[in-house]
């Protein structure tokens, strides 16, 4: 028989071993060599904190009392893991995206970062988990008591044992859970210690199981026979409990704060979840495999009245296997300690982030002006919370007297934490869930749980009087804790679970439907529910108001100087800035908020940044976006739209520029080609005929004269072309200086008619309709005359009527004047009209004497003079209209 002292020695050595492992894991992690600490295997093993002392000891006791019912506690989580695709995948993604630090943080973040909600969830979690912690203390002290020899004066009273175990747990949790505050709230040392403990408890239970089946019963066949012949050898099942407990365990698996801690917060890689989806059910299966055999053998060989909760220890002891019993003790010890450590850690995070920190901050004034290092406050708050939570567990243990069956206590706890489920799942799958709905559902469910499950657990007359059990509160018969609404005969656990969860859900849905969420809630709701659609983060801050320095000071206080500096540096580098102060952009503020929320929770981080940044986090645009019910999608698509609009705008501009350049180049080519053509054509004639004249001796005089006059005519054409080109170039470049003179329009027209060769020299008859009075002008008269001459000579050249006539007429038009040159020739074809004022455009140029520049020059001149020249086809010919502006027509008014 092993003495208690020996056992204590082994336990202490084991604890020292765990300390060492945790310590080296932390060291390795700090040095960046900790990748193996985050393998899928470790992740799966860390999930095994689901299997607490309740599993290790309680499952066998449970089986001894109720047969196979114990297995429901493991079927639920197995189903949740195997169905990871449905819920866990989303939960883990959201938890990571939002940097949720706890269940309370997740729920508060979902419902608009509501701290009230976080506080309610925290309080409920503390109350709900306390019995569970008490259960662990109870199991450890019970197991110790087995080894204390009967009859000997107890060297260690049970209460004292529980006390020292509690102290040890506080120490371990404080040491490894609150050593540092890192942004993602992960604890490498703790996780690795839990993984080791997971292996120890599995090995211990399997060892006892193997010993029992092959060592005691003598193989599988005989074992099965003994099972069938035992008191639990028949399938005897409360059907409602089978289904309800499976559902309950699944719910608790999702909602337990410690499960959230290892499953979501400590998750390193979402892929680990996929491996855990089959590996963890395997672990649960192995843990459950030998439970019934151990129970049956225990019932067989131990004296009636032995505590079945301790069969795992007492069976090996009864068979004289001291070593196996010690291993088994360590397994139970591992189960208890790992659960308490993680649960306490998770709860202390919640308490410090959602209760202590907000209170402390509000007493300290605004976030930026707090003095000292906030980290110290946070760590202190955590440590105090750990102490407090384990103390609560100890108090519950003392109050409940340590007498109840382990399984019963565990179930009470399960029903308590399952109350989080509607708010949690509703929050991630239903955008319509609101803060008030969640709050009301939680409170109703919790109240029902307290009344139907927690208070009755202390027994009649402890908290609730026996009268209340019998007759209900104040004698109202439908308010009996185990028969609500007068429905009797339901198993108490199923009763509490069904009523609390269904009322919780009903109130949650009803209030959600009736209330309206705040904009921030709706934004967060969209983010949670549509987590897989896009991973844009919640928008938030009006960055202009925050200064980087204030943010830096605050971040240093919470993250620590080194971490804060590296965070700010990295951001500055990303923004392309030197130094360590980045621009406080919206994106950076969101990153910072997430980092901070890793240390102090999302609600607190939000509050702290909002104190610095001023203003609310929801802008007018947000409100408008929310009004459309699809804020995120809208914003996202808006941004895409803006981007693509910008891109297509740029592309269009480029295309236009390119077109313009191409057009310009084509124009230039065409112009050069034209000029070349206009110059080379007369030159060809000149060269050709001069060569003929030079090289041909047989030419007669008439031929010589003809060819010489062709040469002469072509040189004149060349000269005129050059003059026109120069004229046009001067006009186009705006280098022309106008020579303003006063004169009379009638005189100018008469001079032009004269210069063009007079009314008699050509066939063209010109009618100059003289106006009765003088039309005084102040303009460049020479240039105006040039325009008129050009129009008259054009008419002379191109008017093909039998008796060509040109009428020149002056019209008063508004403030200005029009001079109309109206001939009786063939109207210009409509397709050519657009081009007549362009350079080198020639219509019906029979003799090729014109270069096609005349009208282009006319238009340039008129533009310079502030007027215009237009063409109008008339029924009987063409009309060119010269428009003179009012200021040119001096005294017309």
């Amino acid at each position, binding site marked *: 028989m092993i003495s208690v002292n020996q056992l204590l020695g082994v336990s202490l050595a084991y604890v020292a071993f765990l300390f060492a492992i945790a310590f080296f894991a932390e060291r390795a992690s700090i040095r960046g060599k900790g990748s193996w600490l985050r393998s899928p295997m470790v992740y799966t093993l860390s999930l095994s904190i689901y299997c607490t002392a309740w599993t290790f000891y309680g499952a066998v006791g449970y089986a001894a009392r109720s047969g196979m019912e114990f297995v429901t506690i493991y079927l639920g989580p197995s189903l949740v893991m195997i169905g990871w695709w449905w819920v866990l995948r989303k939960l883990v993604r959201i938890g990571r995206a939002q940097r949720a630090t706890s269940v309370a943080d997740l729920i508060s973040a979902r419902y608009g970062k509501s701290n009230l909600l976080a506080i309610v969830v925290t309080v409920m979690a503390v109350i709900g988990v306390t019995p569970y912690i008490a259960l662990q203390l109870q199991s450890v002290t019970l197991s110790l008591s087995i080894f204390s020899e009967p009859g000997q004066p107890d060297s260690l009273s049970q209460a004292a044992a529980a006390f020292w175990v509690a102290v040890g747990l506080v120490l371990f949790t404080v040491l490894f859970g609150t050593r540092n505050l890192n942004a993602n709230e992960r604890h490498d040392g703790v996780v690795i210690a839990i993984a080791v403990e997971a292996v120890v408890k599995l090995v211990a239970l399997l060892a006892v199981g193997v010993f029992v089946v092959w060592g005691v019963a003598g193989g599988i066949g005989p074992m099965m026979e003994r099972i069938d012949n035992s008191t639990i050898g028949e399938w005897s099942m409360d059907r409602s409990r089978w289904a309800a407990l499976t559902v309950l365990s699944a719910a608790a698996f999702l909602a337990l704060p410690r499960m959230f801690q290892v499953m979501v917060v400590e998750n390193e890689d979402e892929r680990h979840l996929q491996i855990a989806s089959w590996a963890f059910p395997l672990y649960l299966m192995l843990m459950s495999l030998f439970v019934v055999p151990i129970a049956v053998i225990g019932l067989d060989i131990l004296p009636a009245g032995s505590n079945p909760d301790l069969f795992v220890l007492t069976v090996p002891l009864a068979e004289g296997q001291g070593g196996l019993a010690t291993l088994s003790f360590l397994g139970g010890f591992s189960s208890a300690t790992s659960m308490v450590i993680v649960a306490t850690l998770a709860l202390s995070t919640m308490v410090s982030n959602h209760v202590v920190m907000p209170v402390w901050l509000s007493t300290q004034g605004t976030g930026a002006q707090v003095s000292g290092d906030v980290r110290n406050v946070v760590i202190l708050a955590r440590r105090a919370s750990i102490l407090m939570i384990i103390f609560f567990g100890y108090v519950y243990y003392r109050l409940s007297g340590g007498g109840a069956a382990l399984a019963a206590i565990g179930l009470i706890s399960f029903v308590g934490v399952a109350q989080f489920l509607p708010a949690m799942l509703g929050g991630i799958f239903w955008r319509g869930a609101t803060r008030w709905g969640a709050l009301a559902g939680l409170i109703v469910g919790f109240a029902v749980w307290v009344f139907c499950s927690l208070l009755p657990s202390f027994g009649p007359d402890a908290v609730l009087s026996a009268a209340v059990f019998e007759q209900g509160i104040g004698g109202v018969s439908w308010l009996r804790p185990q028969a609500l609404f007068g429905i009797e005969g339901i198993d108490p656990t199923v009763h509490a679970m069904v009523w609390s969860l269904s009322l919780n859900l009903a109130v949650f849905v009803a209030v959600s439907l009736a209330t309206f969420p705040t904009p921030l809630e709706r934004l967060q709701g969209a983010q949670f529910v549509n987590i897989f659609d896009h991973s844009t983060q919640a928008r938030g801050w009006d960055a202009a108001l925050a200064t980087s320095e204030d943010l830096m000071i605050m971040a240093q206080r919470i993250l620590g100087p080194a971490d804060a500096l590296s965070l700010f540096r990295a951001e500055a580098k990303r923004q392309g800035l030197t130094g360590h102060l980045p621009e406080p952009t919206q994106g950076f503020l969101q990153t910072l908020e997430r980092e901070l929320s890793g240390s102090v929770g999302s609600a607190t981080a939000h509050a702290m940044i909002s104190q610095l940044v001023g203003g609310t986090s929801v802008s007018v645009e947000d409100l408008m976006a929310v009004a459309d019910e699809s804020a995120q999608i809208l914003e996202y698509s808006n941004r895409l739209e803006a981007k693509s609009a910008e891109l297509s705008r740029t592309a269009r501009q480029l295309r236009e520029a390119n077109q313009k350049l191409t057009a310009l180049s084509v124009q230039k080519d065409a112009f050069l*080609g034209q000029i070349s053509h206009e110059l*080379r054509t007369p030159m*060809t004639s000149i060269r*050709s005929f001069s060569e*003929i004249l030079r090289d041909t001796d047989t030419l007669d005089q008439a031929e010589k004269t003809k060819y010489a006059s062709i040469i002469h005519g072509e040189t004149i054409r060349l000269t005129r072309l050059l003059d026109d080109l120069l004229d046009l170039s001067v006009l186009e470049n705006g280098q022309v200086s106008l020579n303003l003179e006063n004169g009379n329009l009638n005189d100018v027209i008469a001079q032009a008619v004269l210069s063009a060769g007079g009314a008699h020299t050509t066939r063209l008859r010109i009618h100059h309709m003289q106006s009765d009075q003088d039309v005084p002008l102040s303009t460049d008269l020479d240039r105006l005359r040039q325009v008129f001459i050009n129009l008259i000579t054009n008419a002379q050249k191109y008017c093909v009527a039998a008796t060509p006539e040109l009428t020149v007429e002056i019209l008063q038009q508004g403030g200005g004047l029009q001079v109309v040159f109206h001939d009786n020739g063939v109207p210009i074809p409509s397709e050519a009209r657009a081009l007549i004022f362009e350079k080198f455009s020639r219509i019906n140029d029979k*003799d*090729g004497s014109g270069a096609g520049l005349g009208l282009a020059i006319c238009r340039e001149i008129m533009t310079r003079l502030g007027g215009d020249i237009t063409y109008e086809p008339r029924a009987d010919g063409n009309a060119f209209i010269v428009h003179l502006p009012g200021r040119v027509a001096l005294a017309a008014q």
Partner: protein
Amino acid sequence: MGKHVLLVEDEINIIEAMQFLLSREGWDVDTHSDGATAVDKVRAMKPDLVVLDYMLPGKNGIDILSELRADPEFARLPILMLTARGQGRDREQAEKAGVSRFMTKPFSNTEVMTAVRDLVQLAQ
């Protein structure tokens, strides 16, 4: 020699000069100054040589050239193209379209008549 040449040109003085030069060497010269109907004229006349201006009213020389070359009957007809535009790209275009000889105005009489003789010799 009695050979036929079709002179497609719209500039009256150049027609005069080319007519003088070609008839002096014994060519029967026909002239045509409209681009749009030039191809029909070639089909009707089936000349031994075509002197083609580049810039013509109605249709430009390159298009006339391509149209003629598309007709197997005129695939090997000697065509001398004259242009006053003087741009490198025009020569490339004309060569691609299958011109026999390409000359830029102003040309020397000797040059153009040598080209005409070369083309006729090649065609024989």
